[in-house]
């Protein structure tokens, strides 16, 4: 267990270190705009075509509202935690790679759901925006990430037990 925790911290620190090397401009104009904001705007248009929404750099705009995605709000934290946990857990390399790929997809999907949800809260239920943004959403994302990791880590044990 202690070996796992030490490896987990080291991998997480390495990922965070790499994350901070990425220039702000690149994150804002390429990753956040194309990968998060534009996709979020498309999802909102799909759900509510009557709501005017525009993706501008790292900001999701609708009328006077502007939701800005910055470092720490991009789902990278949850993805790094999952990748670090999967990389540190004893398993075959192929399982780790598959687990990490699914973890990235999961973190991305959860973050998009969070962003779209926050958009609707900000436009329709404004008093709930702040509690969900800083409290409920992060804890839910981490709880779901833990569930995924537990499922990934213990799936072979369950399979062996079933045989």
């Amino acid at each position, binding site marked *: *267990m*202690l070996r796992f*925790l030490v490896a*987990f*911290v080291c991998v*997480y620190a390495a990922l*965070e270190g790499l*994350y901070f090397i990425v220039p702000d401009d690149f994150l804002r104009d390429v990753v956040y705009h194309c990968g998060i904001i534009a996709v979020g705007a498309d999802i909102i248009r799909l759900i509510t075509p009557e709501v005017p929404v525009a993706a501008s750099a790292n900001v999701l705009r609708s009328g006077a509202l502007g939701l800005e995605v910055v*470092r*720490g709000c991009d789902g*990278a*934290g*949850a993805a*790094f*935690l999952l990748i670090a946990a999967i990389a540190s857990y004893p398993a075959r390399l192929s399982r780790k790679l598959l687990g990490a790929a699914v973890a990235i997809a999961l973190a991305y999907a959860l973050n998009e759901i969070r962003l779209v949800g926050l958009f609707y809260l900000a436009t329709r239920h404004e008093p709930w925006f*702040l*509690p969900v943004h*800083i*409290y*409920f959403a*992060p*804890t*839910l994302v*981490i*709880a779901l990430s*833990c569930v995924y990791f537990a499922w990934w880590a213990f799936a072979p044990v369950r399979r062996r037990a079933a045989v």
Partner: protein
Amino acid sequence: MLSAIGLWGGRYAIEVMIPPWMLAAETLGTSYIPVLKYKREAQGERLVMTALVTRPIYVRERIALPRGAFIDVSIDALHTLVPFVILLTVLAAWPVASFRQRARLLAAGLAAALGVSMLTTPALLAGRFDLMLIDYAAHTGTKYDTPGVVYWMIFCESGGLWLLPLLAAPLCAVVCARWERTRST
């Protein structure tokens, strides 16, 4: 469920935690005395640190903050509860054999939550104070050497608030399991 408890009852937990946080914040700043209080404001409930400057703070030989100045910095109060909720959620789901083990684990979790919050909340406030000086230096075209607490604050904001409770939870389980083993032998 823990999140909901925190939303409605978190205020009391925060008020209980203020004295130890204040103690920890005092060790982070040598030029000011921090006073922490819980405040309900227009933008929500906030944890406010009022720093009484006891020694003039210089930014490149120019006084940025004179002695006797009061500076307020604040963070969202709910934000301080995130590590508690994560830690206690993981411990509540941790597999144990008996109710007694669960109770022991949660007791260890409360102690760990205190430790984690002492490492995070005061640093978030002290980091904001120094960030204000960095902003001031940038406005005046000078440079303010970034103190370590600012880096720690950035670490906490960019995932540390999640990482620390996630590390503390299995450590609580290890400590409880070892304690049980030594008791049974």
